[in-house]
């Protein structure tokens, strides 16, 4: 186990930014999905799953194609 920990520490300079950005983006997108419940297609559950579980591409697809322009009235 000792070596694993060493390995882990060795990779920290990579892991910290990657994890931060990935989680940050997923959470940011999820909040956006919840707060703007108007989509060009699909529903809230589908978009939440997409932005939370498909790394990078999920949020991109949501912001480019799924996000509705109108707040609607």
């Amino acid at each position: 186990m000792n070596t694993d920990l060493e390995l882990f520490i060795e990779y920290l300079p990579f892991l910290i930014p990657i994890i931060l950005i990935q989680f940050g983006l997923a959470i940011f997108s999820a909040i956006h999905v919840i707060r703007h419940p108007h989509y060009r297609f699909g529903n809230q559950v589908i978009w939440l799953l997409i932005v939370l579980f498909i790394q990078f591409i999920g949020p991109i697809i949501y912001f480019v194609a799924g996000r509705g322009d109108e707040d609607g009235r």
Partner: protein
Amino acid sequence: MSQWLGFLKKEWTESVKSYKLLLTVLIFSVIGILNPFTAKITPAVMEKFMPEGTVLNLPEPTALDSWLQFYSNFSQMGLLVFILLFSTMMSKELEKGTLIILLTKGLRRSTVITTKLVMGLLYWTIAFLLTFSITYCYTAFYWDQSILEHVLLAASCVYVFGILIFIVTLWGNTYFASAYGGLLVTVGVVIALFIIGIFPNTASWNPLQLLTAPPQMLIGEVTPKKLLTPFLVAMGTGLVFLIGTLIHFHKKRL
């Protein structure tokens, strides 16, 4: 000129408000980190998944492995992300009709195309510089890069290829006035380049060389001179598509 800058400002505001700046910065930073990370972790992972007792003679990763990752991640994933983000620049306006009011106010039609082109190129430049500099810094920190040649030049070949692909997308997006139209044209052009690439004697000019040759350039197997013709062909093709877009949009029925 003030009209051109005014519309460019609108493009910038639009891209920021539609989260394109945020997405570009985050995603291309991650790609930049992933390149050296993947290179470094691959041998360790391989060891873990091999059955106990297998003796592996995996060489220590070098700076080259890190840059090889750059060429597979940035020119595939990166380019895909960029095209996806900016593939609806024209179709969105044409489908909704947001340009009609401004065009009847005297907005020059060429301004619409050129500002969108410049905005797309600006983002592609941001993306490239981010990924390149992050990968460069990590690689320099972990390995010796002096074994490689033409690091920046080799990477900028991918940048040039991205410009060509972006202009092709812009043309398709304007011509078919739909997001899918633009993407289909782009996919078609890339497939065509690959088919052309099957014939070995096309390697001297095929712009696809800008994607495939840079790794060999790093180890000195390909001289930069060899890529001059593909570079010129890429630029020429891009220019043709750009002029085509301008001419088509100038007389487009809205």
